[in-house]
């Protein structure tokens, strides 16, 4: 597949469409991951800040969303400001977020009770504009709800992360349903970096960019967040080999 982003005519056309779409909104800012392989695939060279992004876990992560939560924490750790984290199951262990670079003083948790209030708090946080990002752990996300959230995020420039987390494996089929989010990611735990001695090396994730508005889908094998929230390309793959060849492609929709 040719890389569409490199053709000047199409790039210009996209820029014009983007200008028309966002004429009455704040100009977009982008947060690069600092990993070229990932940033090259994203239009704008990073995650757009005033937008809604969806992250889900793969395999057992469908239910616990542990890797997905850490992935979100890594993104927010690299932005300044307070974060609102809305959820229904308060089992997040704050020291782990601190280890991904997200300081505990920056995070306000809302134990919202049910999904409807999670979405209401999510939207309220996005509209307020004083936060740097809002994370909400939701199972269902309808087209209408996601469009409202996307518009709220665009109006304030706050990044919205919908952490999709289901109660049962079977419910995860919901992740195929279309939503208005700008990007959609799936993060799966894979075996950690090999060490010369027995032990667990740096954690690794198989990160799939399933959907990206005005961009292509892709997948990467990455090392998990370090203490500042940065991802990395594993050292044994960094010498020219492409991540997607090293790992079989799964469910790129």
């Amino acid at each position, binding site marked *: 597949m040719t890389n569409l982003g490199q053709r000047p005519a199409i790039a210009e056309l996209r820029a014009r469409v983007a200008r028309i779409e966002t004429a009455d909104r704040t100009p977009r800012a982008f947060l690069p991951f600092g990993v070229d392989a990932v940033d090259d695939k994203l239009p704008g060279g990073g995650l757009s800040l005033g937008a809604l992004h969806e992250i889900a876990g793969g395999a057992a992560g469908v239910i616990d969303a542990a890797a997905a939560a850490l992935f979100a924490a890594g993104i927010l750790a690299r932005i300044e400001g307070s974060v*609102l984290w809305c959820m229904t199951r308060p089992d997040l262990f704050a020291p782990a*977020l601190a280890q991904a670079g997200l300081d505990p003083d920056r995070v306000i*948790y809302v*134990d919202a009770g049910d999904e409807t209030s999670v979405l209401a708090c999510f939207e309220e946080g996005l509209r307020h504009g004083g*936060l740097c990002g809002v994370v909400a752990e939701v199972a269902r996300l309808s087209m209408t709800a996601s469009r409202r959230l996307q518009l709220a995020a665009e109006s304030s420039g706050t990044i919205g992360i919908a952490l999709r987390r289901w109660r049962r494996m079977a419910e995860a089929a919901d992740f195929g349903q279309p939503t208005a989010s700008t990007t959609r990611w799936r993060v799966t735990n*894979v075996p950690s970096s090999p060490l010369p001695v027995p032990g667990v090396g740096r954690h690794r994730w198989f990160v799939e960019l399933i959907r990206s508005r005005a961009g292509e889908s892709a997948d990467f094998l990455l090392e998990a967040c370090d203490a500042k929230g940065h991802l990395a390309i594993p050292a044994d793959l960094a010498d020219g080999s492409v991540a997607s060849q090293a790992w079989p492609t799964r469910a790129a929709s």
Partner: protein
Amino acid sequence: MRRKLGPHAPPPEAPLVMVGQSARRRVVTGANIAAQTLGIHVGLPATQAHALVPELIAHDAEPEEDIAGLGRLAIWALKRYVPIVAAEPPAGLMLDATGADHLHGGPEAMLADLLRRLTDIGIAARTAMAGSYGAAHALARYGGAERLVVAAGGEAAAIGALPLCALRLDADTVASLNRLGFETIAELDATPRPPLALRFGSMVGKRLDQAHGRIAEPVDPIKAPELIDVIQRFAEPIAAPETLARYTTKLVGLLCDRLEEAGVGARKLDLQFHRVDARVQYIRAGTAKPTRDKSGLTRLLCDRIETIDPGYGIEIMILTAPSIEVLGLQTISSLGDKPAPDIGALVDILGNRVGEERLYRIAAKPSDVPERSVTRVPAMAEPTELRWPLNWPRPTRLLGRPEPIETIALLPDHPPVQFTWRGVRRRVKRADGPERIYGEWVVSDAEMLGVRDYFLVEDETGARFWIFRNGDGEDEATGKQTWFMQGLFG
């Protein structure tokens, strides 16, 4: 009185009465529980009481002082609990909890909190909550329980067995009714009304209806003199939510101007709606920090306007600030540097929606035991100093309670080769550990010798788990050597 005397007060077991003047005799106007068990009741002449109990301690009653004290207590309840409070001399308080009990965790929790605080300041009290003022009044005084909540519609059953004196009738009427053979409210209720009305006047029927909540009862709520409030009266009753919202905005504007003159900010706002049928409904909103931000406060109140049922229309709206704090002038920072965004307003909106205690930050606590190393602090609390150590792996999700797992493991210090958790067997491919965490004998004696050995294990698919063994693998005194799952890594 016990508080006034301080350490010289007689012990609660000693019989104690208050003696006051009634017409030309000195009579007992109040008796403590010890005195009541000895047969002394209110209204007994003081000389007889002394004859009955020679060691009786008697003090002069100070009715004015009592009423003033009750007034102070009522104002305290007004600020702390609900917007509508009435004092009922000699020793009663009426709180209208409609629409406010949820802020204190429900009716039961609110009464428990009220009782605890009253006990703390040395006041013995009995409380009851019911659907009508009459029923609550009767149950608090004659219900026999310290704290009683009657479910909606249960008033008739709850007060049926109470004696007639619970009905707030005068003593002569009660005595005559008793002579006629009426003992309880239920008996009186089952009697045809007209003969009763003929014999005793309309009061008996009225009190019965009030107890059952069939007719409305006006109360005379106290007003704290220092409260800042603004009132809007309407020539024509209003009912449409948009109109209510518009006047709410106007009232908030006026109130904020008054707050600014006084140099204070509101922590709580009460918006009362007086309906044409003499019922009062209200919205109470709280803020995390004192504020007089017009748009923010309007937003908090307007969010809840749909909970108001205007009925036939609303004729008076009163906005008060029962809780205020000093809020000085704010310096507007200078020349181009961006001020830190204020998220107080957002915290208020969310707190009023989901409840303040569900909105929190997590701070570190000095403890090695993982579940004790975190604590919740209010969302707008000051920044914390303490941080968790970063050099040990910690899972992203922590199970609320460790779950037992079946393992095959070499003792004393090897990680399991395989384990079964929630019915799934996993082979351990890689593992790190042990990280030994000792029990905290400071917290409980049972943990004196306790040890947990934590391992980070990874299975073939790459899923990473945090498991621990209860015990050091050798000595049974340190734990039973059973394995538990406690967390999941990202």
